[in-house]
């Protein structure tokens, strides 16, 4: 029996309101209102259920009678007149609510076979067909995962999948010429180059056979850019300079050099080898951190992309060593401006406002459900993220010192735990290694997924118990490439045999290849000694987590795949992991030549008041409170400094501080640095500035500069083009130099290349975007400092030097200027500044501290003032021993600068502590009058603004 239940809200109809509001924004009011009369949600439920039983389920489970009314009937008997459209998830897309209903029905002793949820909209009858189409596509439904149905639903049953008929498939490679090989790579979405195809062809020729389809898929995934980072680990000819392995020679090399320099004092534990980088924290636990990107899926389905992006990175610490407990998340996004005109969007591109809302909701729903606080992040805006929004998600975890390393053994069982396998995300690894086009939405639908956080939470709960009871010897997550990558990597040094038919499936009909390469979420692979299996199985069973033996590891050096006893694959592990031909690429970099007509200086006098308001209200700088509050940033009770600080709990904190061990006062600070605006002009300087910013953020709250670990995430355009790769080489070289100068090791990283978009004649390349994340340690959190001004009468100082560095600045942005000198890090002085500031904080001399970033001194002091609800009088702009223009002193974005607030009776202590080596200038003082004033070179007030106006300018843009 197939029942339909429609549920309408009583009173306030939030969904209806949302649609009207978004429609208004989308059409800029030109198309009038949609005139929806109401919205409803509902369920299709199939099972042996009488009307009485279904009514019981509706009344007791599905409807809250205080706020909703439910209507029950057979399929298509329920919808009333005036029904516009019903929106359903496409078959096979993860629907967590449907799964919960099936489970919960068991508590009523009812057997429900399948459930689908839907949304339904009434009214809108005045809309013309073309408007209806726009409404459905742009607001009500996302074609990548949903379908909109007008009129009755043409369904007989909900169950999907048909029995699979086993048929081993081999791919004839022998004798194929180059054109045919490339054609095969393309049509199979393998993303393999000609040379790679030739290598594979030769390998199988030597074996005297053609590969099975699953073998070719395994090679494609393992060799994909996403999994093997072949560009950054390949050979590069950089303007004649030979680089054998970019990552090894820059970022890894710096870390190795630091570890050698430190000797017995080395505090790295496991770097660039496991799923996350691990460093020492205290006697009991180490701390680990990983940041990932999930850009391509988020472009097509923002909610699902961000949702599974966060879900995926949470599994990284969980799959590090023998498993780490996630303690906080970070999220950094890059979008096109939300006020982009809808009519300028290329075909196939979602409006940035919708992308942003979807991404934020995706992170919110997964992070909050996992019970992991999202404590830090940033949002950058640039028109060039239109087709390629960037979504970076990071997770910090704690790992017991005796559980930091893993080792699978011969004879260990290969056990899959967690979610079931479906067709989700097939070709995700190879998909993320190609450029997006307006057709991506259609051809790559399988790569788009929705997560089910509760499956992952159950998995987390079980795994941490199993870890403590020593029930497995190795663990890794199923990310891109699914079982193929996870088992292939875990068994790389051994060999493995896998019986693919044993994998629990979401529905029937998956081929052995689909099972092997599916990227269904919430799955992990364990290596379990046979003697431990009964205990692990019992633990999983008790908490409702599925665990299945797929095969075992064996010392054969081969990856053997079987389906119902038939061999379908037999790959040499060495060929799989080491057989890929070296990628050789060309790279070049030259400073951009700006046309002589470019405006680099403002014409006429600068209105500093107006400039400050404009920068405060710019998309990059403005308050992100709308996002932050939707994230639970305090769950787990570890919070010491929250992302929002100050007298009204709404000021922009520099970095979050959390306690990895409840009951201890040793903390960690998490910060980030990102400034794509600098990258166009000078990628080396951009990378240095991003590192400096991430470090400034954690030092500003009290992190010890001798214990800061860094992570890199490169998102670039198509690095097949020499000038794109060249800018990446420059950025990597900066990472190397700064790591050594600052004595801060990189411990983990990831790259996402080919972030380009094609639609018709439009070709959009993202600006080179490097995210640096910093993980700092704080010996005693009671010494932490926040950025809000604390008390009238205190003295304000600028620490660091201001130079005429306006290139890429927000001053230039709001005045529409280009060019200029890009901020350069003084690699000798910067580490001395960090150390001196930290000493001052340890001695309790600093009442507040804020780093200078976008908008420079003026924005920093304004933020400190309105966060603290106190004014500031800057009687000198300091920062430079040579005379500079007022607007340079106020708005330049030179690196390694802080404003600090000091009590009057601590000023001499601070001045003598910093000594003559550290640039320190007295700016003025904190006052109780709620305004910000600054004196210019002329002796006149060049800035004079009430705090409430500044704060309003800063809060207004994203008060959604």
């Amino acid at each position, binding site marked *: 029996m197939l029942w339909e239940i429609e549920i309408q809200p009583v009173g306030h109809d939030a969904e209806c309101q949302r649609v009207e509001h978004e429609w208004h924004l989308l059409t800029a009011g030109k198309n009038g209102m949609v005139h929806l009369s109401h919205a409803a949600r509902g369920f299709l439920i199939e099972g042996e259920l009488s009307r009485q039983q279904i009514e019981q389920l509706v009344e007791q489970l599905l409807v809250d009678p205080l706020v909703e009314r439910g209507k029950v009937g057979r399929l298509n008997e329920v919808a009333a007149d005036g029904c516009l459209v019903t929106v359903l998830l496409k078959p096979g897309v993860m629907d967590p609510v449907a799964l919960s209903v099936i489970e919960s029905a068991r508590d009523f002793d009812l057997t429900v076979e399948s459930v689908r949820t839907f949304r339904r909209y009434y009214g809108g009858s005045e809309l013309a067909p073309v408007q209806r189409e726009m409404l459905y596509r742009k607001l009500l439904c996302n074609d990548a995962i949903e379908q909109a149905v007008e009129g009755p639903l043409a369904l007989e049953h909900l169950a999907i999948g048909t029995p699979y008929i086993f048929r081993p498939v081999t791919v004839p490679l022998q004798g194929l010429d180059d054109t045919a090989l490339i054609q095969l790579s393309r049509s199979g979405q393998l993303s393999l180059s000609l040379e790679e195809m030739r290598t594979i062809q030769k390998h199988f020729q030597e074996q005297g056979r053609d590969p099975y389809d699953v073998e070719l898929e395994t090679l494609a995934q393992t060799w994909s850019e996403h999994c093997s980072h072949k560009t950054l680990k390949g050979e590069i000819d950089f303007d004649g300079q030979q680089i054998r392995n970019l990552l090894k020679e820059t970022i890894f090399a710096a870390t190795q050099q630091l570890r050698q320099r430190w000797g017995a004092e080395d505090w790295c534990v496991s770097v660039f080898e496991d799923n996350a980088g691990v460093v020492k924290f205290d006697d009991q636990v180490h701390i680990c951190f990983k940041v990932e990107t999930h850009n391509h899926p988020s472009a097509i389905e923002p909610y699902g992309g961000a949702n599974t992006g966060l879900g995926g990175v949470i599994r990284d610490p969980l799959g590090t060593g023998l498993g780490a407990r996630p303690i906080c998340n970070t999220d950094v996004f890059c979008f096109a401006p939300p006020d982009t005109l809808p009519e300028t969007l290329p075909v196939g591109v979602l409006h940035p406002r919708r992308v942003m809302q979807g991404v934020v909701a995706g992170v*919110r729903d997964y992070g909050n459900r996992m019970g992991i606080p999202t404590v830090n992040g940033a949002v950058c805006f640039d028109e060039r993220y239109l087709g390629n929004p960037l979504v970076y998600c990071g997770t910090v975890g704690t790992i017991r010192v005796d559980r930091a390393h893993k080792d699978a053994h011969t004879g260990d069982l290969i056990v899959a735990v967690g979610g079931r396998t479906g067709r989700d995300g097939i070709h995700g690894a190879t998909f993320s290694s190609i450029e997006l086009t307006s057709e991506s939405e259609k051809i790559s639908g399988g790569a788009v997924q929705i997560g089910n956080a509760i499956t992952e939470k159950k998995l987390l709960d079980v795994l941490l118990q199993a870890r403590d009871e020593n029930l497995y010897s190795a663990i890794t997550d199923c990310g891109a490439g699914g079982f193929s990558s996870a088992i292939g990597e875990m068994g790389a040094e051994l060999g493995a045999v896998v019986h693919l038919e044993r994998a629990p499936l979401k529905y029937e009909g998956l081929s052995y290849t689909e099972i092997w390469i599916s990227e269904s979420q919430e799955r992990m692979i364990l290596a379990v000694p046979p003697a431990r299996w009964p205990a692990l199985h019992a633990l999983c069973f008790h*908490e409702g987590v599925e665990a299945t033996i797929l095969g075992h590891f064996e010392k054969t050096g081969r990856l053997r795949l079987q389906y119902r006893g038939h061999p379908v694959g037999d790959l040499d592990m060495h060929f799989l992991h080491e057989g890929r031909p070296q990628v050789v690429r060309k790279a070049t970099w030259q400073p951009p030549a700006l046309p002589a007509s470019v405006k680099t200086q403002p014409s006429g006098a600068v209105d500093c008041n107006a400039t400050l308001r404009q920068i405060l209200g710019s998309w990059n700088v403005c308050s992100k409170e709308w996002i932050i*509050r939707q994230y639970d940033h305090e769950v*787990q009770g570890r919070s010491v400094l929250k992302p929002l600080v100050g007298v009204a709990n709404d000021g922009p904190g520099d970095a979050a501080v959390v306690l990895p061990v409840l009951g201890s006062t040793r903390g960690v600070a998490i910060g980030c640095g990102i400034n794509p605006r600098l990258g166009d002009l000078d990628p080396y300087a951009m990378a240095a500035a991003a590192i400096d910013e991430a470090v400034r953020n954690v030092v500003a709250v009290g992190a010890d500069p001798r214990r800061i670990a860094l992570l890199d995430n490169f998102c670039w355009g198509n690095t097949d083009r020499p000038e794109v790769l060249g800018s990446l080489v420059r950025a990597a070289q900066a990472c190397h130099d700064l790591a050594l100068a600052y004595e801060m090791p990189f411990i983990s990283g990831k790259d996402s290349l080919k972030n380009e978009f094609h639609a018709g004649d439009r070709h959009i390349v993202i600006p080179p975007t490097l995210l640096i994340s910093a993980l700092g340690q704080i010996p005693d959190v009671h010494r*932490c400092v*926040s950025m809000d001004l604390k008390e009238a009468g205190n003295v304000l100082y600028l620490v660091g030097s201001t130079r005429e560095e306006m290139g890429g600045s927000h001053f230039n942005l709001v005045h529409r200027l280009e060019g200029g000198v890009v901020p350069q890090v003084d690699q000798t002085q910067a580490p001395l500044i960090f150390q001196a500031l930290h000493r001052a904080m340890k001695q309790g001399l600093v009442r507040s501290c804020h780093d200078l970033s976008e908008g420079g001194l003026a924005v920093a002091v304004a933020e400190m003032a309105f966060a603290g609800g106190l004014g500031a009088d800057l009687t000198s702009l300091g920062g430079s021993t040579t005379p500079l223009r007022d607007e340079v002193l106020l708005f330049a974005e030179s690196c390694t600068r802080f404003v600090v607030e000091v009590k009057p009776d601590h000023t001499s202590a601070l001045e003598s502590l910093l000594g003559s080596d550290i640039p320190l200038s007295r700016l003025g003082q904190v006052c109780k009058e709620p305004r910000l004033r600054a004196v210019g070179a002329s002796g006149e007030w060049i800035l004079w603004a009430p705090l409430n106006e500044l704060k309003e300018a800063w809060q207004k843009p994203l008060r959604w």
Partner: protein
Amino acid sequence: MATPRVLILRAPGANCDLETQFAFELAGARAERIHINQLRASPALLHDFQILVVPGGFTYGDDVAAGKILGIQLRHFLNDALRKFRDDEKLILGICNGFQALLKAGLIVPPDEEGPVATLAHNTSGKFEDRWCHLQAQPGHCPFLKGYTHLYLPVAHGEGRLMTRQSWILHGLRQTGQIVLRYVGPKGEPVDYPGNPAGSQDDIAGLCDITGRVLGLMPHPERHVLPTHHPRWTREGLAAEGDGLLLFRNAVKFFAET
């Protein structure tokens, strides 16, 4: 009396169990985290405990409605055991999702012949929000809140709008003194959003049952037990302890006194 034992009920998606355990242990109790499947298999486990806590989280994903599926399980499988637990002069606490589950299980205000009398619905803002709120306590005979007048705690929820079916139900709750926690302004004055973050009727943040021994509240006392939990400790200085700790100490003391 020996140290009271606390059972922290784990369920799929519960996620404030560890910090709730930390808070109870800081207050001097012995706390254990036990999975609902284990309790359903042997409800007699409850005999060994004096305090039952349903912690915050997203049990069963809050799919369908927040706390609904856990509430159904409590009512279907543990109703007698829980009522006996309460009638044995023991204490039950539901925080956030735990409050949603206890309320939907009918353990705070029992349903009448027309069905449930109160619910926790979606916030009027339409969003999940994490923010700090001032609360006024009217403890009456609720032992958890003894000694409190005002407290400052964070909320983090999307479905915290307390609604009663009809106004006489709200009057009844006022008269019986079951409205033990209300959102207020910093000086104790009545507030609108965001001071009342969910848009709750009568600014209700917490309710107890008729005995006072079953308390449900949307704010998170376990997130304000350490002085460094306070969002403004860097400007206002470190207090001796967080506002929420007394609630846990009260629960422990209740058994020391009886």
